[in-house]
């Protein structure tokens, strides 16, 4: 399942996609939890009883601001979360 967390508003689309099929048996030891400086990820049991990562509810409506420091303008060459997610389950839409 591809779970898209985020929103679309007048300024653009801000979604973080998580491919739960790649996330279930995480080969990276849930590295996303510690890689994100804002600690936006958490592990939940989804509706189909799989343990997968998701974006915390508190951050889902403010991704454009919460992720801003990790974008190139914040001094990062690559996003810490997508780099840490070696199975390639994570993607940013912007």
């Amino acid at each position: 399942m591809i779970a898209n967390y985020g929103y679309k508003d007048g300024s653009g689309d801000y979604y973080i996609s998580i491919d739960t099929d790649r996330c279930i048996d995480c080969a990276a030891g849930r590295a996303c939890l510690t890689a994100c400086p804002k600690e936006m990820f958490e592990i939940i049991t989804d509706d189909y009883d799989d343990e997968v990562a998701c974006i915390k509810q508190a951050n889902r409506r403010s991704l454009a601001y919460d992720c801003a420091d990790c974008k190139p303008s914040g001094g990062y060459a690559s996003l810490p979360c997508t780099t840490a997610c070696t199975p390639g389950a994570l993607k940013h839409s912007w």
Partner: protein
Amino acid sequence: MNAQVAEAVAPEKKEFWRWQENTWVDESKDWRDAKIVTCGIDVGSVSSQAVIVCDGELYGYNSMRTGNNSPDSAKNALQGVMDKCGMKLEDITYVVGTGYGRVNVPFAHKAITEIACHARGANYMGGNKVRTILDMGGQDCKAIHCDEKGKVTNFLMNDKCAAGTGRGMEVISDLMQIPIGELGPRSFDVREEPEAVSSVCVVFAKSEALALLKAGYTKNMVIAAYCQAMAERVVSLLERIGVEEGFFITGGIAKNPGVVKRIERLLGIQAIDTQIDSQIAGALGAALFGYTLMQKQGAAKAA
């Protein structure tokens, strides 16, 4: 103060946005004959539904406006359908809560997200050919892909912005002073299709609608422009995850042909039709989840 003066000073305010609440029970069946009776309660931001499923088949439902607290809304929704068929809470084997207020349904055995429930409900209502679901809820909009069993394969939700939601349509209904049920048909009663209002924000769309009226647009033209804007808005959301054949629309706005036909025109595909109330998809899916869980547990209501 006589009545005429009182009315002139404080005229009764009509609420054009008020949509029709309804209760339905399948009179051809008797729930007492069922082995497993499950219930799904969808407490949404605007409406609440309770659906009763007997042995995996839709038996009855109640759809009403959400009140000022979720537990009471859940109780009232369920009471409405139970009263109609002479059922008591203890007659129900399993209750699943869904929607925004799902964790506040006091008698629910389990809570499941509305995304999974809408996919399951749409699979029942539209059949196993349903692959893409657009749920236009009261205060959010969801685009969902599912497989032939109604299991979610991809989803996207927008609950930050009211554009493309039922609330947006309610605002326009009140502004135009036209009952919400008439907006769809009236949006086609125009000589030529106007361009969509340019603002995606409900607040600014309202301002723009007023400006269009001042510029000489008829009410029907303004409604058509707003329906088109709403259709364009949700289509852009759908395009993020892609649209597959087997397109199904749930939620209150599925009852508005002014938006549905324009979405179909923009996508170039026809939505699958159903005789079941589009607003109950989430609660129906929740009740079906409950039935599957009960089947797995091998539990059956004592005869």
